[in-house]
């Protein structure tokens, strides 16, 4: 435990240093990169605290996808911050108040890591003891995620779908997905084509492996860290890599417009469809036992497989669309006060 604690302490020190650096760094490119590293270190900390699934997701999402989005935004907006802060004393007061309240609240919490804490005693003990017979998967997190609290995960998927819908509504221009809409004028060909051949070659080599790895993560989520969400992000990351190197104009014909938007909805519909099927069979919504009434455990397996697939489909489609609409947005001239579409 001393080992764990000392490593955790070093990680916390890293996080504090990075956090302060993000705060003072006025070059927002650097600040975004540092935030990415912040996520990576916190993911390592999650691993240390046994939350492998959370670490997986945080690495893929926080360090990967969010950072790419921040950078893509900064490519479109002004990327240095003006010096000075707004109402520093009020802000400090609010922060001290909140932090003080939280610390006050922890005083009655059981010591860190005690197994007697009430949080471990009640529902969690049921999951740890019975999920293997109820559901039969080695990864308890997947069991809880997809079955016991499957409705939360459905909500989570809807959050992703909402984000996809919202970003498309805000950023998509008319006819963006029409073939040829992104034809590159010969003059501005440079940024992509001039990209180094070595990078291109290596990326091309890695791409199939990335997609394969995503499929592995999707299928392996029942047995170890991973699952639909992580797989979806990694799958999208593969295409993001492609888009980064060859440019969105090359990406567009591959992912298409309507098809991806359709995928976005169909993953949600697959998840919901499984639930509705259960409902029609006379079981409660998302009670996967309905899939094979004779063998409830099998039903759970099929159900979890299907809903994880739904999650994977929607997540990858949404991530792709979000990246795509950000990367094709033209950069506005400085100080141009023109409105968007």
């Amino acid at each position, binding site marked *: 435990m001393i080992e764990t604690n000392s490593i955790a302490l070093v990680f916390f020190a890293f996080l504090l240093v990075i956090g302060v650096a993000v705060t003072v760094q006025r070059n927002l490119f650097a600040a975004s990169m540092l935030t990415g590293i912040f996520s990576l270190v916190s993911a390592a900390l999650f691993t240390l605290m046994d939350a492998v699934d959370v670490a997986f997701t945080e690495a893929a999402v926080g360090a990967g996808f969010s950072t790419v989005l921040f950078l893509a935004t900064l490519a479109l907006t002004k990327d240095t911050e003006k010096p000075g802060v707004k109402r520093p004393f009020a802000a400090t007061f609010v922060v001290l108040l909140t932090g003080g309240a939280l610390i006050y609240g922890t005083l009655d919490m059981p010591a860190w890591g005690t197994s007697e804490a009430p949080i471990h005693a009640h529902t969690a003990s049921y999951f740890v003891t019975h999920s293997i017979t109820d559901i039969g998967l080695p990864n308890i997190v997947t069991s809880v995620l997809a079955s016991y609290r499957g409705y939360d995960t459905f909500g989570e998927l809807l959050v992703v779908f909402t984000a996809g819908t919202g970003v498309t509504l805000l950023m998509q221009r008319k006819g963006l997905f029409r073939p040829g809409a992104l034809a590159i004028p010969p003059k501005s060909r*440079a940024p992509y084509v*001039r990209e*180094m051949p*070595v*990078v291109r070659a*290596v*990326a091309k*080599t*890695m791409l199939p*492996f990335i997609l394969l790895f995503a499929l592995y993560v999707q299928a392996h989520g029942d047995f170890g860290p991973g699952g639909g969400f992580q797989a979806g992000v990694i799958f999208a990351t593969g295409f993001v890599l492609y888009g980064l190197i060859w440019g969105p104009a090359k990406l567009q014909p591959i992912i298409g417009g309507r098809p991806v938007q359709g995928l976005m909805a169909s993953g949600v519909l697959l998840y919901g469809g499984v639930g509705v099927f259960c409902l029609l069979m006379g079981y409660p919504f998302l009670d996967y036992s309905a899939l094979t009434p004779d063998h409830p455990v099998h039903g759970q397996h099929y159900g979890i497989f299907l809903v994880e697939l739904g999650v994977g489909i929607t997540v990858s489609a949404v991530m792709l669309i979000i990246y795509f609409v950000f990367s094709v947005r033209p950069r506005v001239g400085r100080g141009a006060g023109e409105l968007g579409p």
Partner: protein
Amino acid sequence: MSIVETIMQYIGAALILGGSVFCVIGAIGVIRLPDFYSRCHAAGVTDSAGAAGVLFGLCFMSAPLIAFKLITILAFLWLSSSVATHALVQAAYARGVRVENPRVKDWTHGQETSAKKEGEA
């Protein structure tokens, strides 16, 4: 535990420790070396020799499937980090980042104008 396994473990331990040493040396280089390009070199040491030492060392300690994953990681790591460094150095060079080491002739200086032009093309 068989003798072979024991020897493998010794080799593994040696490799891990060696890799760790390379990592620390490389990191010191990243801190101490005078300019961007030489720091890139130092960072490269941690990514190539350091990573290889640690990951190969771990291979000696583990079951075949785990070892396969370790090799995969190493392959990805070697490909990706060297390519990233390559691209980065090229970009930095095109943008006119100078060599600061006084003992080396600063040949970026002479080509600065052409490099600039290329960078803006």
